[in-house]
């Protein structure tokens, strides 16, 4: 499936430069695995990086550094490319549909994660907290399941890994990358034909705004891992 919604130019540039929070980079990376267009863009952007890299004013190198590097060369044999390929295959036994960049958090398939109850149709699995306090989690919405109305305190990135969801602004399918700003109030709903799994990165916790769902806010916070950097 070809993605319709992509990271914008500024985000792709930051990814190519390696200058974005790793939690965001995780979402961009997951999108790239599913999007040949953005892969092409990234290759181009890397060339720009190489150009400015190559134009820097060189910094003088000491003899010590040279000696140190050359002393380490003898020990390394050429890795057999065939064995490298085998290793990669071993790491991915079955096609679980999990993007490679998430393998560090998911051992096997999505079912292996511990999913917390959020609402009758939503489960959440927390993956980690980034240094800047952003929370990285997976959301799993049952077919046709609705989330409650909510707004964000900060930016939220949603990467659709499986299935599709829709809200007031459109329908988002596998591979789509959606960035929402703060004060963006919306109510996502999974399409009826399949469950929807999304990777989400949240700068700050979401706030439920519906009258009947406000009580969920403290619950949701409990479900989040602690971070001393969070403020």
């Amino acid at each position: 499936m070809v993605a319709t919604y992509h990271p914008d130019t500024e985000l792709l540039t930051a990814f190519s430069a390696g200058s974005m929070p790793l939690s965001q980079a995780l979402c961009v990376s997951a999108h790239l695995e599913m999007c040949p267009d953005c892969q092409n863009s990234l290759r181009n952007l890397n060339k720009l990086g190489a150009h400015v890299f190559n134009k820097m004013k060189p910094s003088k190198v000491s003899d010590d550094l040279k000696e140190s590097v050359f002393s380490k060369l003898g020990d390394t044999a050429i890795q057999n490319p065939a064995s490298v390929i085998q290793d990669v295959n071993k790491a991915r036994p079955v096609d679980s549909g999990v993007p490679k960049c998430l393998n560090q958090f998911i051992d096997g398939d999505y079912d292996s994660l511990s999913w917390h109850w959020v609402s009758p149709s939503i489960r959440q699995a927390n993956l980690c907290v980034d240094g800047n306090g952003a929370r990285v989690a997976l959301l799993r919405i049952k077919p046709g399941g609705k989330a409650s109305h909510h707004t964000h305190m900060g930016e939220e990135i949603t990467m659709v890994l499986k299935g599709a969801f829709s809200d007031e602004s459109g329908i988002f399918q596998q591979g789509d990358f959606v960035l929402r700003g703060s004060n963006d109030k919306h109510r996502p709903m999974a399409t009826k034909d399949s469950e929807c799994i999304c990777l989400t990165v949240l700068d700050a916790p979401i706030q439920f705004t519906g009258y009947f769902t406000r009580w969920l806010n403290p619950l949701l916070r409990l479900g989040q891992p602690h971070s001393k950097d969070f403020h």
Partner: protein
Amino acid sequence: MFDCRGYYAVDNFLDHVDYCEPKLTLMRTNTGRLAEYFDRKLILTVLLYQKITDKMLNNILQLPLQRRRMADGPTPTDEEADKQSRLTECLERVASRRDKAAFEVLFEHFAPLLRAYSFAREPGASLMADELAQVVLIKIWEKAHTYNSQKASVNTWVYTLARNSRIDLLRRNGRYATEIDPEFLWQELEDESADPFMSVQQKRAEKTISDAFEHLPIDQQQVIAKVYLEGKTHQESAEELDLPLGTIKSRIRLAMQKLQLVVRR
């Protein structure tokens, strides 16, 4: 077969192939025969031998004028081209023969740049500069066999190694407090198999990018340097340049529009 030789600048055709569907497939049939040609000759041959679909034609017609002009821009000096092919040759000798003399050429070229790249992010951190240079140079030695000159220039390959290693080093030094392992984020993307087209295309694109970058307004160049060399986020760049965040983003967006690096359907 549509004869388009009289209508369109041959130069632009290759830049354009990227955006065409069905991509290169219809040109692969004659690849064996075409491979002996390069650049202009190759394209001409393609135009002569291959059918151009309506969609490709439309795409060519829609090429912005600027892009057509870009192809006529200044060519890189022979000196620069010679240096590049020398680096490629050395890297291939390192891969195939574990040639230390060839590696020394790479060392002399890249070690000072790698140190500068580290200083750009962490000024004054001399130990880190040496560590980064060492890590990347040893990677060059160990991974030389994975380099494919069809896909990227040696420069671009080394740049991506340096970027990934710097992120990893900053993380291990506790500069980024994070549980996310960057190793899996910037892995080399799956790519089409080697293709004589890609090599030519790749070289053209790099030349075009270098030329066009030099023509960007200074304020856009400055932001790009902040982001790429200093590794600053948009927010950090905004603070350090004392500009609104929106200005940083719009400068990047404008620059990338001019450079035409981002593919959008």
